[in-house]
């Protein structure tokens, strides 16, 4: 028996959200007195030491190019691992690929899934109670999983990753699969500058709204983000008007994120916007209207003109960074 965790490689490294999942799996495994087995489709031959350091004792290493393009094949790989390792609990990240794969694997295994867990399960015998956000972050619900095998996908950034020295045994895992490759990738369009973390994983986010008046004014937003090492985001109308690319759109109908720091500049704080950002640890709001609703959902606020405040903030951040070094 085991706790199985599905991990992924991005740009030659184990994904941060995957390491969070290995930690999470280790926490559960300890309570159940079971080993943590990680499955990784390591087509690029990336170093896997961190998976061990995060708490796995065994790593099943697959080399399956097709599973990278077709989630049905990735799912079959996981179903195989779940069976061969007699997994009682299976952990995924609630990220782009986890959302595509976990429900499929769970349905195939007839196992109940809690998608987007924000805390450790409360385990009592065979009963698992797991908390997740509902109503777009306005509330949370405690779910009970009724099946014998439990599947949980963990909301990224819910826990800080802790690595300790621990080595895992690596075993090649290439079972024969029956699912044909049906999804053909024609073209990949990257919007990854390589400089900052992708928005779903970012710990620091600088976001701006219609208050910035036009795309030509984003220079100060980018500069502020750069001074902090933050990723940029925006409100929906800004993406709709093509001032910013749509992958930056956060909120109810865009990405839901939960960085450590969210700085909202010239964003009114509509309920649909808040739905995507209210899980952030700390929120700073800069708005020239002291009645802007966002101040009611912020930790720190500055009332004033973004065009004069942001350059001053950049100055101060730069001073702070210089003192840190």
């Amino acid at each position: 028996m085991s706790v199985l965790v599905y991990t992924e490689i991005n740009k030659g490294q184990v994904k941060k959200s995957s390491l969070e999942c290995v930690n999470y799996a280790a926490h559960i495994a300890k309570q159940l007195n079971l080993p943590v087995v990680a499955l990784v489709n390591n087509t690029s031959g990336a170093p896997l030491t961190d998976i061990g350091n995060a708490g796995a004792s065994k790593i099943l290493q697959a080399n399956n190019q097709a599973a990278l393009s077709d989630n049905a094949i990735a799912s079959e790989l996981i179903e195989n691992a779940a069976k061969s390792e007699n997994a009682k609990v299976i952990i995924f990240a609630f990220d782009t690929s986890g959302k595509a794969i976990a429900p499929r694997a769970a349905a195939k295994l007839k196992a109940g899934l809690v998608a987007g867990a924000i805390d450790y399960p409360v385990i009592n015998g065979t009963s698992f109670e797991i908390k997740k956000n509902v109503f777009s972050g306005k509330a949370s619900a405690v779910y009970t999983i009724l099946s014998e095998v439990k599947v949980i996908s963990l909301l990224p950034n819910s826990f800080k990753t802790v690595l300790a020295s621990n080595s895992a045994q690596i075993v090649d895992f290439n079972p024969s699969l029956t699912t044909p490759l049906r999804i053909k990738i024609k073209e990949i369009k990257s919007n990854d500058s390589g400089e900052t973390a992708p928005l779903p994983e970012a710990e620091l986010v600088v976001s701006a709204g219609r208050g910035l008046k036009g795309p030509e004014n984003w220079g100060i937003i980018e500069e502020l983000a750069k001074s902090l090492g933050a990723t940029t985001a925006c409100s929906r109308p800004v993406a709709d008007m093509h001032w910013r690319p749509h992958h930056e759109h956060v909120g109810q109908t865009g990405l839901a994120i939960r960085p450590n720091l969210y700085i909202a500049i010239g964003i009114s704080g509509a309920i649909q916007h808040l739905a995507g950002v209210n899980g952030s640890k700390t929120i700073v709001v800069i708005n020239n209207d002291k009645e802007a609703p966002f101040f009611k959902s912020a930790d720190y606020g500055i009332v004033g003109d973004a065009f004069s405040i942001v350059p001053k903030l950049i100055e101060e951040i730069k001073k702070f960074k210089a003192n840190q070094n």
Partner: protein
Amino acid sequence: MKILVAISNVPDTTSKIQFTENDTKFNSAGVTYIINPYDEWYALVRALELKETGAATQVTILHVGLTDSEATIRKGLALGADDAVRVDADSSDAFFVAEQIANYAKTNNYELIMLGKETINYNGSSVGAAVAGLLDYPFISLATKLDANGKTLTFEQDVDGGSQIIECDLPLVVSAAKGMAEQRIPNMRGIMAARTKPLTIVAPTAAQALTSIKSFSLNPGRTTCKMITEDNIAELVTLLHIEAKVI
């Protein structure tokens, strides 16, 4: 090509979220229900466009839920769906709902199953992939574009760090994200026609719920916002470092 669009009935985005019966049930008193925006704006509207261009022959909406969702279903018909089906069952568990959709799609030969990327009440993003798994169909997640060329469909989809263009043959399941289509407002003719379009009620297929909700709680809001004046921005940086410990 017959398209089945699965729609969910959700509280309007501005609804006050409250719970009853000892925090075990959502309090729907005074709440306006709508079609889940992702199901409507993106999946359903794109399905209707495919019919208008001749790529699809029929657009059916399917809803798993109880009698109180009739207004939501009629709205989908008013937007232009040809007919509707309601599977008469409570829709609390994603797996149970997926079984219903998969079963209906299979028995009635739908080749393209479309739904939104998530619902705005339970935010699980689970049903589409589960339906695809139950039917052994491919699953295209987070599609922002969909074009049909005979049996081959082309998609653009969001992936980590960007997007990609992919191709897949029918049958398949796709979850729709922002960009796939633009929101439409039903016109008077559509609303009138919706009244007489077929709405079939079918009994659920046997399936077990694999999860249940034990209790709800409201997430605590932020209580105080510390205001900082424009001439004292260094203070903000200090607070973020010392107090919030985020930089």
